[in-house]
């Protein structure tokens, strides 16, 4: 970063907010903006109307690219141009921008839904060249990359499960699915649910709502680094530790693979203990702490009375 850029960034954002802006930038990328689109949008939002050349100069983006970026942001509806000589650009508020992006995505999904029917209808008119009977279940593998594609696969598996759903994994894996439909899917399955997990004090919140009689705790010796979900006798999603921050998994309907993992699961399940709902006095509110302490004091009093009475009896016996 040049001195001028640093100066502009500090003037515009202030040192204290750099980290927040970095995070906002990263999040906007998840909303479908490129890093440079996000940079331009945030710059306009913070500084107000600017000419293309000023944007190009201050953000150190080549002039031609800055026109492309402004054009694409305008098409997305989150910046607008102000007629004049030279033309200036300004942005809509961040709240409006996010709403516009979300609405556009919703429309796009709706379009895809509508197109699905059309494609399927068209597909029916195309003659088949492959015999469906050749497509035998039991030998398919699929690499799943990213939380969403894994979740979509899990959803299909859990919803179609008829006998059982077996889940093995550490809390840290479940936390990655927090705020998704994952727990709700497990909760509502009609098949028998069995969950083997580390269930640590810090991570158990990720499984809130799943009945405790379906959860067993992995002990120290069984805290392996692998996680998987098995559906009935025929499908499994096996998580891969790829070393990157993105989740990766393998899905397969290989009978031998499913059967091996199922045997392993059953073995660990047999050796593991059910989770009990913990009553942690340190996390309870003050009233309950008080009640707890009061019971302890009452217990002390009961024991003291007992001891006192017995000592008196002993004394009387001595005197006799």
């Amino acid at each position, binding site marked *: 970063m040049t001195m001028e850029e640093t100066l502009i960034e500090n003037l515009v954002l202030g040192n204290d907010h750099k980290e927040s802006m970095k995070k906002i930038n990263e999040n906007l990328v998840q909303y479908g903006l490129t890093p440079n689109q996000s940079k331009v949008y945030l710059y306009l939002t913070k500084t107000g109307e600017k000419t293309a050349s000023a944007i190009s100069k201050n953000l150190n983006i080549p002039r031609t690219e800055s026109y492309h970026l402004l054009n694409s942001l305008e098409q997305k509806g989150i910046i607008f141009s102000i007629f004049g000589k030279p033309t200036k650009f300004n942005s809509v508020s961040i709240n409006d921008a996010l709403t516009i992006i979300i609405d556009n995505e919703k429309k796009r999904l709706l379009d895809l839904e509508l197109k699905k029917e059309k494609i399927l209808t068209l597909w029916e008119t195309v003659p088949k060249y492959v015999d469906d009977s050749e497509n035998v279940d039991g030998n398919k593998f699929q690499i799943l990359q990213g939380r969403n594609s894994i979740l979509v696969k899990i959803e299909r598996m859990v919803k179609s499960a008829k006998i059982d759903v077996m889940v093995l994994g550490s809390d840290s894996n479940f936390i990655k699915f927090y705020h998704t439909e994952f727990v709700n899917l497990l909760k509502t399955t009609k098949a028998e649910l069995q969950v083997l997990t580390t269930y640590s004090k810090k991570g158990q919140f990720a499984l809130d709502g799943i009945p*405790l*009689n379906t959860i067993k*705790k992995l*002990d120290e010796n069984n805290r392996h680094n692998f996680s998987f979900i098995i559906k009935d006798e025929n499908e499994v999603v096996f998580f891969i530790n790829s070393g990157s921050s993105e989740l990766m998994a393998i899905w397969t309907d290989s009978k031998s693979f499913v059967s091996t993992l199922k045997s392993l699961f059953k073995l660990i399940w047999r*050796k*593991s*203990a*059910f989770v*009990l*709902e*913990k*009553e*942690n*006095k*340190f996390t309870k509110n003050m009233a*309950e702490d008080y*009640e*707890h*302490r009061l*019971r*302890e004091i*009452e*217990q*002390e*009093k*009961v*024991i*003291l009375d*007992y*001891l006192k*009475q*017995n000592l008196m*009896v*002993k004394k009387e*016996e001595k005197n006799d």
Partner: protein
Amino acid sequence: MTNLLSTSNQEEFGLNVLIIDDNEQITKMISSFLDMSNYECTVVNDGKEGLDLIKTNQYDSIILDLAMPEFDGYEILDALQRENPSYLSKIIVLTASNVPIENIQKFKELGISSCLQKPVDIDQLLSKIIDSSV
């Protein structure tokens, strides 16, 4: 009230009791009246230490508190369930906490001798100790 000191068969009992509770005052008092009744008493105020003692010694009865810092009674029950389930029948849960009804049900399923909420009557506690030692 049963007066154990005057119980003629007190010598016959001589039970070996382990008390695991972080409340030192309570453990001292319970061990006092058990000592007076010729019970052999071991006291620990730390859950982990308690679990180690259970694994390395034979006790006729184990009085266990649930809410303890660091390593609590639930963790002890977890470990016993996995490694030494036969000890569960020796356990008397004695707690000042509100124990959820599902847990009481679970205790029964696990074969835990009894679950008492403080304050508990001494006669009741003594009778539970004898029950759990059988």
